[in-house]
């Protein structure tokens, strides 16, 4: 744990995480502390192990070694790797989006957001019994779920698309829908896998505002994988750089931009500062 941060403020602590596929260590002894209520960026060249890291966090992979533990305000410390994969979102409230968007394309945007509230609604529907009978308790729960979805859609300027099939929307809008859907799960920790990929400069500018607003308003923590430096450098409070599965640098955006290891990892040349600056501060 880094100096100056007390344990209370750490929402996620990763200790000696290793993920091996055969002989290849996609993640190699990674330790990281994610401060609560902040945006932490995870960057690195292609194949550095960023998405593998997310897959380990969110239960899609079982790490070979190491501990990932979430400091849940009411449920205490939860070891994410020990939870069944669906409980990572349901119990630990760690929710992710995907690098290649994974919406339910034939369902409408509103339905996508209602599906995200499945667990609460399923309980309210008495595992379908109260629902089939149309009991008022279920109707009320459904109305609340719709209200929550509508609230997020309004905040993300998606409300006029509520009844459109998600697959029919433009790429950038689909990205926002995926974030809105993740928010409907009430995440404590929101893991965004390249949310700015495929967005134009105006859209990624809007994404910046959105992320900052989310952290300020919704009191959540964001873990952000991103290649678009204009996003990472502008919104992150803290950045971790991976290369070949190892953490090669960690610090504020400013520190990262001037870190010789990072420059080397990105450009492979030591004398190419100018090029890096062009990319990093674009």
């Amino acid at each position, binding site marked *: 744990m880094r100096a100056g941060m007390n344990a209370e403020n750490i929402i996620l602590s990763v200790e000696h995480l290793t993920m091996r596929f055969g002989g290849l260590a996609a993640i190699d002894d990674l330790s990281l502390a994610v401060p609560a209520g902040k945006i932490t960026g995870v960057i690195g060249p292609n194949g550095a192990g960023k998405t593998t890291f997310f897959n380990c966090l*969110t*239960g*899609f992979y079982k790490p070979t070694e190491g501990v990932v533990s979430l400091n849940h305000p009411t449920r205490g410390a939860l070891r994410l790797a020990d939870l*069944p*994969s*669906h*409980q*990572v*979102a*349901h*119990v630990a409230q760690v*929710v*992710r989006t*995907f690098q290649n968007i*994974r*919406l*339910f*394309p*034939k*369902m*409408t945007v*509103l*339905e*996508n957001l*209602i*599906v*995200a509230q*499945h*667990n609460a*609604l*399923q309980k309210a*529907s008495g*595992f*379908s019994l109260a*629902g*089939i009978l149309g009991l008022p308790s279920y109707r009320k729960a*459904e109305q609340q779920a*719709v209200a929550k979805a*509508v609230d997020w*859609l309004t905040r993300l300027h998606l*409300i*006029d698309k*509520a*009844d459109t*099939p998600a697959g029919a929307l433009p790429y950038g809008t689909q990205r926002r829908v995926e974030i809105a*859907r*993740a928010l409907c*799960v009430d995440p404590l920790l929101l893991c965004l896998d390249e949310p700015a990929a495929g967005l134009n400069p105006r859209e990624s500018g809007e994404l910046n505002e959105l992320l900052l607003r989310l952290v300020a308003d919704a009191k959540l923590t964001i873990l952000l994988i991103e290649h678009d430096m204009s996003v990472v450098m502008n919104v992150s409070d803290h950045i971790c750089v991976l290369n070949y599965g190892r953490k090669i640098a960690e610090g504020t955006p400013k520190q990262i931009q001037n870190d010789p290891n990072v420059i080397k990892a990105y450009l492979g040349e030591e004398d190419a500062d100018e090029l890096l600056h062009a990319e990093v501060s674009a």
Partner: protein
Amino acid sequence: MSPLVFANNAPTLAERCKDAAGIALIALLLGIPMIGLTTADQGGSLQVLTRWPLLGAFVAAAFCGRLALRYGLDMLKQRRQTRDREAAARPGKRGVRSIRILELTGWLAFGIALVLPILFSDNRYVVDTATTVLIYVMLGWGLNVVVGLAGLLDLGHAAFYAVGAYAYALLSTQFGWGFWTALPVAGLTAAVFGLALGWPSLRLRGDYLAIVTLGFGEIIRVVLTNWTDLSGGPNGISSIPRPTFFGLPFVPSSDTGTFASFFGLEFSPMHRIIFLYYVILLLSLLTNVLVKRLRRLPIGRAWEAMREDEIACKALGMNITNVKLSAFALGAMLGGVAGVFFAARQGFISPESFTFNESAIILAIVVLGGMGSQLGVVLASVVLVLLPELGRDFAEYRMLLFGAAMILIMVWRPGGILSHREPTLRHQPAGEQA
């Protein structure tokens, strides 16, 4: 589709002629040995004769036919594109209209189903065929939950149909259970078998799952054929009791009163046929209401979400195991209930009735109707049951015609007869969209 592509689409006359000439050339090459040359028996020896004028006519026909076909297809494509563009310009309006039409068709079909046996009360063939249609509607609706909503390709649905049928046959012949008491028990038995199939195949999807379900269907059939002590083997189970009207049997005379004597009617075998028709109508309507309601509940939306993207479901905290198993269990239960009815109607069942062919037809009904569409299943069942019936005049070409019709439907509507998906809930009522 963009209008730019559309503008460049219409080929010139020269292009059309070239295309047709190509076809004519193929016709010529094929035609020389097949039409141009012929053999004839002349004075005991075989002579090769030529028929050039006939070949010329054949090639000309191929040329003109191709020209006309191409032109017709292009016109059709153009018309569809114009329509699509108009629809894209006013999305709300078309949506509302098509939903209204669908609703109307649904009610119309319901109305026809309700009065059909009254209109044809003396025509056993019509009522019997309609009953068969309804059995397939019910099987289709059951499988629609698994395939159409949950997206789990199931090639062994006939297995659950068989389990339901045999459960009723055994309960009634061995333990004297009545139709209505055996119905839920047999349905639940089929549901348990659904879980038995679902559990080991939880991790499978698509083609792999299809093969497992195919195997499962065959296992059930083979067990029924060979476990003679239980199922009577290939001889099946006969003299299965028919359903009674609240205890009143449909027989000419009985000590305890019959349906006819109770209502002061003259006995007619049609009473039972019509009664059976209304029983399956009631069962399928219950199925329809149940599935329609479930689709609008969290579990129904979870099924559809799982069909769309299983990984996303997991990331949202959904327990995929429960979602999958519930789909399998419900689909199997509905298939089982249809099986109970089938056994009660036939009075005799054997493994012959539950072959892979049956599974394939039920799956064809779901796919042809449009995955997930309830009304589509009804239309597809009508088509698939009536086509072979109407085709009886064509004797041995019947199945050929049947296959051709299926191909045509899929070419005409790749998404099935009704591929429209109605959202389970709306933010704004339909029609108020811009």
